[in-house]
């Protein structure tokens, strides 16, 4: 036994805050450092109407180390790995500071990432290429993926990463559309 690390308190309060916020959160198997959050595509983007389950993992050194973010159902985006759904860690790290908390990720970081991809540091080279060379085709492809993989249907849009379908539900509220948010464009 040892006294808790300085980051533990932050982990506790940040998770509490996220759950008490309007976001729909599912803790995976009673663990505080790994959970799923429902995320809706920003309404002023090709990702509008898409619904994704985001997996968040808080590392041991949180909040000094940024959380890792993964999309559990497929999304076509230059900075998101198509196969694993992982968001490019560099893009997160470029903006993450220990002063941020988890709601920043869902209220600001992810919507901005989707609306303004960074094709010059791509994880999905094909998506980056399309975004640069053929923007209309890029949007078409994005919408195609949304309709195939990111529609909120009971049973999910695909079998990708079924995750732990626990009896554990800590959901508090429904996902609201981002038009209602007052987003701060600070980054």
């Amino acid at each position: 036994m040892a006294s808790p690390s300085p980051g533990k308190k932050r982990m506790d309060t940040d998770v509490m805050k996220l759950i008490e916020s309007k976001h729909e959160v599912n803790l995976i198997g009673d663990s505080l450092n790994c959970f799923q959050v429902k995320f809706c595509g920003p309404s002023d983007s090709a990702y509008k109407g898409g619904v994704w389950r985001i997996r968040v993992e808080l590392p041991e050194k949180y909040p000094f180390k940024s959380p890792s973010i993964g999309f559990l159902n497929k999304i076509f985006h230059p900075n998101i790995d198509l196969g694993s759904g992982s968001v490019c860690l560099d893009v997160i790290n470029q903006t993450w500071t220990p002063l941020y908390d988890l709601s920043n990720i869902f209220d600001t970081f992810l919507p901005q990432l989707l609306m303004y991809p960074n094709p010059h540091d791509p994880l999905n080279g094909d998506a980056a290429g399309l975004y640069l060379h053929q923007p209309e085709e890029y949007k078409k492809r994005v919408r195609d993926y949304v309709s195939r993989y990111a529609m909120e249907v009971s049973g999910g849009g695909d079998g990708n990463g079924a995750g732990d379908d626990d009896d554990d539900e800590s959901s508090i509220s429904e996902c609201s559309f981002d038009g209602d948010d007052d987003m701060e464009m600070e980054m």
Partner: protein
Amino acid sequence: MTAPSDFVLTDFGKFERPATYHACFRALAKFQATANDLPKPHDEADATKFMNLVNEINGSELQGAEKEAAKKFSFTARAKLQPVASAIGAIAAQEAVKAVSGKFSPIKQWWYVCLQECLPVNPITDAKIADNRYASQIAAFGQGFQDKMLKQKWFLVGSGAIGCELLKNFAMMGLGNLIITDMDTIERSNLNRQFLFRSWDVGKHKASAAAEVVMRMNPDMKVEAQNNRVGEDSQDVYNDEFMESLDGVANALDNVDARLYMDRRCVYYSKPLLESGTLGTMGNTQIVIPNVTESYGSSRDPPEKSIPICTLKNFPNAIEHCLQWARDNFEGLFTGQAGSAKQYLSDPADFAAKTEKLPGNEPLTTAQGVVDFLVDQKPNDFNDCIEWARERFEENYSTTILQLLHNFPPDQKTSTGAPFWSGPKRCPKALKFDPADETHRDYVVAAAYLRAENYSITPTKMSNEELAKFAAEVKVAEFKPKSVKIATTDAEAKAEAEAGGGFDSDHLSQMFAKLPSDISKVAEMNSKIVPADFEKDDDSNRHIDFIVACSNLRAANYGIEPADRSKSKRIAGRIIPAIATTTALVAGLISAELYKIVNGIDDIEKYRNTFMNLAIPAFSFSEPMAPPKNTYLGDNHWTLWDRFDIDGRKQDGSEMTIGELLDHFKNDRKLEVQMLSSGVTLLYSFFLNPPKKKQDRLAMTVSEAVKTVGKRQIADHERYLVLDVCCNDLTEAEEDQDVPYVRYRFR
């Protein structure tokens, strides 16, 4: 001597001290000349005589703090203290090396360090001129102090550079009982500074060798040597009983994680911690005193700059990027796949089950990797290995580069019209395999041999030139750019979706079906698979050979200056320079802090943390920080040293339930618990769903919940659990309260 120019100022709280000491040393010489002896320890009469001499030399009478300092100087004039010797020796040695080598800047001119805070608050009445080995220490601190030292029990974590220095210091100081642990064995490169070891000790366990030497230095000491790594796995050895019996802990570690761990243990058991570290000529010491200072973990260094993935993957611009890429390449080619394959062969059913549970797309990629390694790409002889090496060359230094250039041509513009390939993005060019090129040759040679080793294939006897020629003759596929096709028909879209790797169990099972399952065959294969274990110091294993060639070829792709073997090894092997002088200095300075602990000093103003860089040279001594103060419910103050101590054992011998724990907080502490956790396991929260689950939880005992929900074993020696609570007050506003952690006794 009589007209000193500069004094190095080390402690900005004592501007005048160096000048005072300078006068004191001159006075001491005079005193010795007339009295034919040094001032008697802690003797008022001699001190008065001494002070007169000082005032004469100084030109005026010393006042205030300087007067006190001069008096203490006289009181302790006969003292020769090991920590001081260690520090001065280190400084002097470094200056000598500077003089001889011309490297680094010398100290200008006089360097004094004041350690008078080590003296206890109350005057010392039992100082005497003893005639044992501790005489020079007793002259400073008295006999009673020395007796206390012999009864001290300390835990020294690590027996490397700092460990050896600390051990030697503790032996000379007469620290009676030590337990020392280190998992490492002695290596040749240790001998330049881990001076308790000699060439005949190479291969022995560090802790045991060090303990033996030190007990010969001072037979009064009891030093117990162990080989354990400190961490959660050794908490049964370094358990409550062990930790509680200590007077303190000294860290002599080489990584931050272990330091943070020991720091948390010391906070938990309320023990002082001597912490120090070095990096080349830079060093620092930090003293941690329960309820007085903050802890080591209270402050954090800014995170080390890690190389962004995209830079590593596509846009290197420095040789460090190429070296890291080469290192990752090595892992991927010679360790990862072979390791997974071996895992499969050791227990096929278990591996299949574990792989299915991996997140995202990992099940497929892992399975594919094993299939590739054991079936699709398995080499049968050394020629196959050479062919494989040539293919890897083509893939890494030609195909991938050409594909990148296809997506981003050399004249590519960004959305603002500026050139894409500019600044940190260097435009690459593909390499064409040439057996006459030394680096090309080195690559295929190293790669072929390492591949053969993975499969226990005996290499054919051939010269490197012959091998390279053979490689040159291998037919490689012509480059065809992967174009980004947009599916225009449903059929195409479907085919693409399938190809996109939509993961499903069937696909995975198909893959596993390809793998060998015959028990005898599996065992035979398993014995032949040998994953590589990266070892930088064995020149015959070709590991560094591969890294150098792999990295320099990538450098050639991107027009980056290559690095020679020595530089490559240093960067890829993450070798950190270490010298004996810095080590001795930090060990000396932190050992001095131990005097303060044994003398019962609890005034934060008397303790010192230090920072130094022998090269500049720069030294700074400062007071430690006090721990931040927190408050809950208006007037309950606490720091990181405090906690809620709760006894969960009830009168009838049973244990508290979670519900009862919550009641305790509400009734006895006026706090409403919103969330109760043990590590990252959530034991209870107000948002727990469905209601039955919540009820069940409230009815569980705390330890039961930790065991079942947390899926953790509770060891026999454990009596306490560490819990975290998030609480509100009981008012209508339900204000969040900042509360300490909980140490909960369950049996």
